[in-house]
């Protein structure tokens, strides 16, 4: 039997890294290090001797890893980026998920492919969770500010509620603005005049 693939994870989001580690362990990998980037990455790679490095694309240290792509005296095990160069789909999937992977010292591509797939899946999951949270948060905030703008119009122009809302909507359309953005301006202006 082949020994398990040794994987290093570089990700500043601890929760995501932990979840990825669990998923990789389940897939039979040995996670040898989990780093939140920083100094001496090359030394860390040389110490931990991973076969694969999974790295968050938002981590600036990617450029440090790219420097390890050549055999030198200091760099006996070169690393290559793990995407099949002809496979645009896998490049796109990894970029969209925000994850990148490097293979250290010539491990076979077939063994590494599932690792990248697990990583892309986990990164995507976190991305959609975050988006949902953001959407929920912003729609709540937006509803509140639209209510306030409506209240201001009702008070100052003596309008009924649905009339005030229709006026807001028309103003937004005329100015090619989002309703919430217009509401924010009205609220800001009213605050200024008070």
């Amino acid at each position, binding site marked *: 039997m082949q020994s398990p693939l040794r994987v290093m994870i570089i990700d500043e989001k601890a929760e995501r890294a932990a979840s990825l580690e669990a998923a990789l362990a389940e897939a039979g990998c040995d996670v040898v290090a989990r780093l939140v980037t920083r*100094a*001496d990455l*090359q030394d860390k790679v040389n110490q931990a001797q991973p076969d694969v490095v999974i790295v968050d*694309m*938002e*981590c*600036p*240290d*990617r*450029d*440090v*890893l*790219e*420097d390890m*792509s*050549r055999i*030198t*005296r*200091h760099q006996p095990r070169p690393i*290559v*980026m793990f*995407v099949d*160069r002809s496979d*645009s789909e896998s*490049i*796109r999937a*990894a*970029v*969209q998920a925000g994850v*990148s992977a*490097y293979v250290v010292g010539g491990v076979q591509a077939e063994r590494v492919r599932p690792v990248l797939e697990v990583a892309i899946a986990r990164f995507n999951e976190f991305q959609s969770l975050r988006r949902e949270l953001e959407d929920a948060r912003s729609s709540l905030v937006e509803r509140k500010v639209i209510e306030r703008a409506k209240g201001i119009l009702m008070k100052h122009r003596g309008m009924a509620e649905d009339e005030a809302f229709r006026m807001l909507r028309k103003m937004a359309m005329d100015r090619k603005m989002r309703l919430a953005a217009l509401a924010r301006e009205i609220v800001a202006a009213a605050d200024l005049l008070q």
Partner: protein
Amino acid sequence: MKPLRLGIIPLSDCAVLAVAKEKGFFRRHGVEVTLSREVSWANVRDKVAAGALDGAQMLAGMPLAASVGIDPLARPLITALSLDLNGNAVTVSTDLWKRMVRADPEATTKRPIGAGALKKVIEEDRRSGRPLLRFAVVYPFASHNYELRYWLAAAGIDPENDVRLVVVPPPRMVEYLEREAIDGFCVGEPWSSLAVQHDLGRIVVTKYEIWNNSPEKVFAVSPAFAEERAEEHRALLRALLEAAAWTDAAENRAEVARLLADERYVGAAEPLLRASLSGRLLASPDEAPLELPDFHVFHRYAASFPWISHAAWLLLQMIRWGQMTEPIDVLATARSVYRPDLHREAARDIGLAAPATDVKTEGAHAGAWSLADGDGGTIAMGADLFIDGRPFDPAKTVEYLAESAVSDLRVSLDALAARNG
């Protein structure tokens, strides 16, 4: 229509893109653009390849390395516009500077300062069995890597064996220097100025002094984008050319510094950015600033033009330092990536002069000179000397490599000569 997405890296030389956006040059040419601040050069490259970005600020060597297939992704890129000349500096730690001054006081007083004093320090270290000095650059295919190596090699220092070169992201350079994880670096502004301001380092030599008016960043796109969306690409080039002219004007530099201070761009203190942008660089905390009017050149001296001779020189550095293992036809490769033809079309659209020739001898002009623009006019050009006085004739690529005393060739010169007849 969906806005075009262009990538930038937080450095002073994202200026032309930032100005094109903020001062309305993109809009004037009918293109809506969003700029995306990226954290690494690798990201910029991958996102352009995957279509997540339509174009980006890149190191001049990046589209070349990508197209030759020696970077990790190996997806071709093209460029029709250079974003700037010069703009970098080599900084050493205060400690190392003191050792250099002790080792050779004379070699550290006259500008441009060569690496002769550093060589003496390296020899001292070797005699006493100390570890190699560490210097950082920002990316393997960065001009910083090549100019630092050029400066070292010109003094007989072998960058492969006499020092250790590492990669550190620009915003972390100063922190690495402070932790003594590195002894020096070559980086774009404002990071050298920041090291000097905190009294952690001293600027020894500028990129301008290593090679006057040398290529730095380019605006790169995928060949598919340039072909399938040629009109939009051309409009982007027109906008960037006008933005470059605006950015270059001395009277606008203070506003450029103000723009770049914003978190969406460089996110550094305005006075720090203003220093090098106004051509006054503080090399040492206890000296008057250096007057370097050409520290950043965004447009004059045909700075926006994608010179085939610049591309050829960069490709030769990749060969010289062992990044290439297969022989290539240097000029043909340069021409497939650098696209002066597309540049001229866009320049003509807005009545802007462009050089009539694609190639010039580099290192042949000690001062101002002028160049025909193909329309009966002339373009004022700047100096283009190398620190060691060696000229580069793009017609003699193999001879140029053969004459480079220090190198780490992994391609035989014979094989190269066979491809470059």
